[in-house]
């Protein structure tokens, strides 16, 4: 009778210990979430949605602390952690999508600027063709033609840069090129106007 009683107590004790240790770390969920974060990073989230990406990393760090915290408890329960991991994974997908959207927005802006610059270059080249062929006109235009050539080279550089996926730097470059191309357009129109004015007088 006594032995049965002790056996019973030991069984209950052991069961409690086993049960409390049984709840295992949700490693699969952790791996899935980490993978989702890596995908967001690969999508350029660190660069294009910097603040969101930091928040994502921060959330993951907090969840990992909660995982370890559960390990210290006698009766472990990872239900809340699993829920947090699922939320972080969802947020990682959202951050990835935000990054893709931002990249697309930049890409559209870059393409638009490139089209505008190409238009300006064409317009500048046409202005050169329309310009007077006299030596005085030609001299001024040779210099401007050189500048247009330099702009075209820079535009090609920007296209190469875009292909490498560096959207922010490419946008800055194309904006700078557009500014210069516009300035040349104005300068060219002024030179031609000045020449025509001189010719009339």
């Amino acid at each position: 009778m006594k032995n049965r009683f002790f056996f019973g107590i030991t069984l209950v004790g052991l069961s409690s210990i086993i049960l409390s240790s049984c709840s295992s770390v949700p490693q699969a969920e952790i791996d899935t979430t980490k993978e989702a974060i890596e995908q967001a990073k690969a999508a350029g989230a660190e660069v294009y949605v910097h603040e969101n990406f930091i928040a994502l990393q921060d959330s993951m760090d907090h969840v990992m602390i909660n995982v370890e915290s559960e390990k210290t408890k006698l009766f472990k329960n990872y239900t809340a952690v699993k829920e947090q991991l699922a939320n972080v994974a969802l947020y990682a997908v959202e951050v990835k999508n935000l990054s893709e959207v931002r990249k697309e927005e930049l890409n559209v802006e870059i393409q638009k600027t490139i089209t505008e610059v190409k238009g300006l270059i064409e317009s500048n080249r046409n202005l050169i063709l329309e310009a007077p062929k006299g030596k005085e006109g030609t001299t001024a235009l040779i210099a401007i033609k050189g500048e247009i050539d330099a702009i075209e080279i820079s535009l090609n550089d920007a296209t190469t840069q875009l292909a490498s996926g560096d959207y922010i730097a490419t946008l800055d470059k194309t904006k700078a090129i557009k500014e210069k191309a516009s300035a040349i357009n104005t300068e060219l129109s002024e030179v031609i106007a000045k020449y025509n004015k001189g010719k009339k007088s």
Partner: protein
Amino acid sequence: MRTKHFLLLFMLTGILLLLVLIKIYSIKTPESELMRAGTLLSQARYEKCSEYATIAFEKSENYYDSAMIEWKYQNAKFFLLRKYDKVFELSFKSIETSNIAIENSKNIKADFEQYLRKRLAQIHFKINEFEKKFGNFPLLQDHREELVKCKLLTFESDLTYKNNNYQLCNQQLDSVDLALDKILDYYTIKLNIYFHDYPQWQRLTEQTISHSRRNNSYAIVIDKIARELLIYKNGNEINSYTIELGLNWIGDKKHQGDKTTPEGLYKVLQKKQKGETKYYKAFLIDYPNAEDKVRFFLNKQNGTIKSDAKIGNLIEIHGNGGKGIDWTDGCIALKDADMDKIFNICPVGTRVVIVGSVNALNKLSIYSK
């Protein structure tokens, strides 16, 4: 007896369980410290400490990672053997270094921002100075393209600065600075070499002015650098006009087609009325004079110019100027109204001296800085 033993055992088990529970709940776990360390690390990332306070930030990250690893390690042990002292220590170190990194990063970023603002202003100033000094110099095609690239990159760096991308902005400014200095040095040296002839220019100018004084006559002094035609009467300057020159105006004319305006002492050979010249009205000068011919011959002999080169002629002071650029084949162009003025007062035979500059290089304010 059995009951007594049973009670004793029961009490002992109870005490043991109580001790275990006390031990478990008395162990302070490092969650809050690690949470704090994690939050500060996030703040450090937000403040771009990885760029501006790299060492402190990396240290902080390492402390945090080590704390997590140590915590994991301790948690893997049997619960009665767990010790979190090292985890606490590492967490505190991470917090401390994160704070240092954030503080340093803020300061460095502010200093860097200020430095770049100044640097950008300096680069803009440098480009403007280059254009002021050498804007009308006959630039080499490569240099012209390089200058356009510099301007583009400067504008780009303005944008990267506005986007708070200071590291990239600094790299861009480094490239602009280097390229600009290279071009600036090239033309500064060229200018200095050009001014080696200054004593001769000075002599010729003085000669011409004193001739005007002695003979109570008019004289024309062409200052290429200043882009000025000066009219002297009885040795006194009475007027000055803006001129335009040949595309490659630096230096003396060497041969036909080099688009250089000759330098030396000449005189007006012929006054061309409207219809006698393509360029409104003109003074034909006596280029090439005897000195030009000798120099041309010597240059041919020493191979400075091709053996089949021609010396050129028909150098004029004419109208149709005012275009704001150097465009002639070597002539001197004035606005028609200015041409009218000098045409009315200067007779055939008027002395014309064409020099690089009537002032020494150190007296020219735009070059003396």
